[in-house]
Every structure is written in structure tokens, then in C-alpha cells.
């Protein structure tokens, strides 16, 4: 691999080198590589896109295009915990929007964003599919039903 001119010479991403060598010489390997990168780092860092571009001789703009086309890929670091607040009809009727507003206020971020300390990511969702418990929020795999705005802080406090 040729050295790039940006001054980064030490491989900052050792797992990437393993991923790349696993797929060496393989056609159509870009998406599997991106999936493995995301599994390794939780997201796809810009510097990794540059490295993949050099290794595969694919323009970085093309890789970035693919990564932003598929919703499965994240281009920013994600928090240790993923918060989802249901905005489905049932939740909406029972005040889902107020729950979301409270979460936004508590964390200081909007859906699609991550807190600076990388503790939480807030994901935009339509319906979580557990309408019987409306309004619902999820943190990672845990479902918290019958939410009220004043319960939000204590729920979030359980996740470090």
C-alpha cells in the first residue's frame, strides 16, 4: 500500500489491516469490509475510508457514497448505549413526543446524535412494535413501558 501524504503513517487501525487482508484480491468486497469495520469500531471513521480507498483503489467519494446510502452504516462514533423512543401512533396518542423531548433535554442531543462522552446515542425510530406498553422507550435491548417524562432521568441513570 502506498503511503498517503496526510502524514498518518503508523497504522492507527490494526483491525482494519486484518479485515483488508482477509478480503485481499476479492471482488465486490467493499460492503463486507464496511460491515466488518463497523463491527470492529462501532462506526466507519473517515480515516478508515481513506485507508480502504488506498488499499482497494476505489475513490473515497465512492466509498462514502456507499456508506451513506445504506442505513445500516454509521459515520459517527456511537454511544455505549442506544436510546430509542417510540413515535408510533399508540405512543404518540399517549404522549410519546413528550418522552422524546424529555430524553433530548436530559441528554442534550437530537435523534441521530451522540452525547460527547459517548455514553448515549439517540436513534430516530417510528414504531418499536410494543403498543400495549405505550408510551415506550428502549435502551439497548431493554424495553421501558408506560413511560412518563419524570421517569426518564432515572431510567437513563441505570446505564453507565
Amino acid at each position, binding site marked *: 500500500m502506498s503511503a*498517503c*501524504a*496526510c502524514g498518518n503513517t503508523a497504522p492507527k487501525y490494526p483491525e482494519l489491516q486484518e479485515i483488508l487482508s482477509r478480503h485481499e484480491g476479492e471482488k465486490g468486497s467493499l460492503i463486507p469490509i464496511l460491515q466488518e469495520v463497523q463491527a470492529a469500531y462501532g462506526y466507519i471513521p*473517515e480515516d478508515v*475510508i*481513506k485507508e480502504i*480507498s488506498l488499499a482497494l483503489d476505489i*475513490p*473515497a*467519494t*465512492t466509498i*462514502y*457514497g456507499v456508506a*451513506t*446510502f*445504506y442505513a445500516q452504516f454509521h459515520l459517527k462514533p456511537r454511544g455505549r448505549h442506544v436510546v430509542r423512543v417510540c413515535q408510533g401512533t399508540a405512543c404518540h396518542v399517549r404522549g410519546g413526543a413528550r418522552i422524546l423531548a424529555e430524553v433530548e433535554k436530559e441528554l442534550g442531543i437530537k435523534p441521530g446524535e451522540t452525547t460527547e462522552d459517548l455514553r448515549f446515542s439517540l436513534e430516530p425510530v417510528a414504531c418499536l412494535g410494543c403498543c400495549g406498553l405505550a408510551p415506550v422507550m428502549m435502551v439497548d435491548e431493554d424495553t421501558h413501558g408506560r413511560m412518563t417524562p419524570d421517569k426518564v432521568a432515572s431510567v437513563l441513570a441505570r446505564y453507565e
Partner: protein
Amino acid sequence: METITLTIDGREVQAAKGMTVLEAARAAGIKIPTLCYHPELRPEGACRLCVVEVKGAKSLVASCVMPASNGMEVYTNTPFVREARRTALELLLANHPFECLTCDRNGNCELQTLAHDLGVREVRYQGEKRNVPKDTSSPALVRDPNKCILCGRCVRMCGEVQNVNALGYVGRGWDTLILPLFNRNLAEVACVACGQCSTVCPTGAITEKSYVDEVWKALGDPKKHVVVQTAPATRVSVGEALGMAPGSIVTGKMVAALRRLGFDRVFDTDFSADLTIMEEGHELIERLKEGGPLPLITSCSPGWVKYCEHFYPELLPHVSTCKSPQQMFGAVAKTYYAEKMGLKPEDVYVVSIMPCTAKKFEAQRPEMTASGVPDVDAVLTTRELARMLKEAGIDFEGLPEEEYDAPLGISTGAGAIFGATGGVMEAALRTVYEVVTGKTLESLDFTAVRGLDGVKEASVDLDGKTVKVAVAHGLANAKKVLDRIKAGEADWQFVEIMCCPGGCIGGGGQPIPVDREKRAARIKAIYEVDASMPLRKSHENPAVQTLYKEYLGAPLSEKAHELLHTHYTPRSRF
């Protein structure tokens, strides 16, 4: 060549095997509207404006990507086809800002023309308009993503032809945008400012950054002595930008027009092109004597220079240290000429008329300040000059032919051919041959380096010593040459690289639209200008000779280095 026969609209039509339905129709004189298609780029089939009915096919097909085949029956003008095209267009218009009156491309916009031609008189769909801020970060170009119809022509131009890949699709569906890498501003990515994207953009979504207002202001300022230089390629293209035939030679009219705009002196970049040959020719001779680094690569094309800084920084020692003719002109105008006129450098305002958008970037390089102030103050493209002439109400075609002012307007045919691919090489060879051998050249025409082939090679006999040369234009072609140099497989001593297809006559600031025939017409005109000049060798330029005698001493002297040479900066490839 194998031919096939198909019927289009009931007419039997012959086509070459491998042609698309669109190409077969066009060859037969049948017009099919297109938008994302561009004859010099790989077809993408994105816009569906070119749909036709093909007998036996279940749905309409995009003719720009559909291969023509024997016995095919094509219908280009049925109610079904017309309705589908109009719907496709109306969907594009549904979220398009209707800003034609104030748009840079008003009157020369493919979207506007199609809306007119396809009979769109109302838009039945109302979409949410995009509201993305303009990107004015680049000194050369402005992007207005709200006017983008996602045809992808800029992406393909930047990738396929220029091998830069600064632009790409981002996101999906309604949110898709064409953006520089990582959503950055254009000035923050490895864009070489060539402006080729702006020449293929069918709309006003990518245009040159205009400095017309700055120039009007300087012209109106009594304290400024405003001089203008005109690049070689502009004399064969500003007429075209004003509706004359491609390849019209309008040198004298352009000079007259510039005087009427109020410039205090009308000078010529051909003068400083001759000066460039003196410096670069001697640089070559010196490197041949001292053994390197070879090959020497030309440095007049600022898009190429920036490309080298981003993508081949290890080859920068090969690039000539000569400033480009534009910058040499500015440096001389603000020192030698200013002193002669009893003016301070800051009171001389230098305007360039260039076929190029990268020249705008070059003029703003911090190192281009030989006199302490920028060598060049404002760079206008051929298109911007045409706009100024329209605004001033000048009847261009009716103007008399006038002469450039002395001394910085005196030039030779060697300076003129800088505007075509191979021209700098040829001009340099004319001078280097005579300087090295002490003999007079019998034929001045080095035809092997002329023409539109992507990479041209030749060997020249300098009295027993053979010099091997190569010429490339368009950066994807340049890449082929550079990779051979990098791999140590090349035995050239001198290489000319021009960033844009065809050289400067195909520059990013030239009249739109452009294609191979138009480039060929402009090139033909350039060589006609050369052939008609009484002097055709740079070292015979009397004004250049006087400049050396009175001011610079000799080529490559200390003074010449101080004013006329520069250095380069490695940049990131992302």
C-alpha cells in the same frame, strides 16, 4: 466495422454494432432529449428523459444505455413516450428553485431548454424545495446544490476524465446530494479547481466564482492603473461565447472591446508565454546538462500543478519551477512595467482573461507576490468577459481590429500555441533547438505533439543528441504518464501536462457546451494564429529581449528567479 439495421419511427436506420439506441438515433438525425447523458462520459441512465418505446419490451427503455440491435423497432415520439418524459422532467422541476432570471446559466441551461422544448407549461407536482447553503469556499467555483438535478455528470467528469474524484453522491432517496468528499466544502478537499465539472453541468449548480464586480470597481477607480492580459486560448473562444462559430479568431476585436471597457493598457499573456519559454527552455537545458531531475514537467497549468501537489507530491521536484505565464505577467507588470511607468506596484491592478477556473486559485496562492502584493488581482474566465461585454452593450462582431499595447503586448506564435495541448512543448522545442544547436530550425512545426490523442510521444534530434518528450492532456491521461515516471519506466526528458482535455482551449472557463469538434475547431484556430505571426519563436520576441537587457539580465538569473519562479506545497490526496 459491423453494421446493424433497426427501424426508428418507421424508418430503416443503419448503425455501427455497439452503438446505443440513442447514438443510432442521433446518427440518423433523430433527436431524443437527454439530461444525464453526455457524449464524452460513460452513460448512467439516471434521468429517464431519453426513454423510447421498443417493440416487445415490457416498459419504456432509457435509450442512452440500451444497446441497439438488429431488427429492433424503436419509437421515439409516441404519446406514452412524451408523457413519460414530461413527467420525469416535471418531477425534477418540482423541487427546483425557479430562479432563471438571476441564474448564471439563464439562456444556456439544459434544464431550462428541455422545459421549453418538452412543452412544460405548468408543473403538476409540488415538492419541498431543498434549502442547502451555497458553497462559496473555493476561489474558483461556486456550488449551489439546490439547483442540482443529480444527473451525476460532474461526478463522472471529475472521476473518469480528471481522475480526481472530489465529488460524489451522498445519502439516498430525497436526501441525496452531490457533495465534495465527507460533506466538506470544495476548498477543503482535493479538488484541483479545473472547473471541468462546471462545463458539463447542465444547470447552474456548479459555476465559476465571478470576479466581474471587482473588475468593474477597479475600472471605475481613478487611482488604479488597470491593465489586462489575455490568455492565448481566449482569442479563439470569446467570439464563440458571444454566439460566433467555434474557432472564430477574434484577437483584434477582443483588444478593441477591452479598450472600450476602460482598461488602461491591453496586454497579452502570449508575451509572458514567450518569457516562460525562455526560463523553462533554459531550465531544461540546465537539467539536461546537470542530469536532472528529469523528465522536466511543465508548470503552466495550475490545475495540473495542484493535482501533482495532491496526488503525486513525490514528483514535485520534476515540475518546472517556472511560474505560469499568467503569474509571470503579473510579476513583470508590477515591477519592471510599474517602474517604467513611475507607478507603485499597489497602484497597478492586473486583470487576467483566462480560459481557466484554476487560474483563479493560482492567482490567490500566497507565494505569488513577487512585488509584495499579489501578482494578479482578478481573474475572469472567457465566459465572464463575454458577460461584461454584453452588460456594456458592446457590439462585439462590429468592432474594428485593434493591436495590443507595447511592450507587454508583443508576442510570437510560440506564445499563442500555449493554448493547445502540445503547444508549450512545441514552443519550447523551437527555442531549445536553436539555443542548443546554434542552428536555425528548418520547419517550425512539430506536428507529432499536436492533436487530440490523450498521450503523445516524440523524439527530437538536437544535433546528435536525442530528446524524448511526452504530452498529456486531461488528468486521467496525465496519470498514465505520471505512473510510468514514478515506476521508473519512462525515458522522457521533457513532459508537457495540461489539466484540461485539449489543453487551455478546453479549459473550465471556456464557452459551454463543449465537445470534441468544438475543441478541434479552437485548436485549428490557435495554429492559424501561430502561422500568421511574423515571429514564431519565443527567443525572437523583441520585448522579451529588451526585458532581459534592461531588467532581468539573463534567463535563470537571480532577478529572474526572484520574480518568475516559484515552489510547490505537498497536499493531502483527500
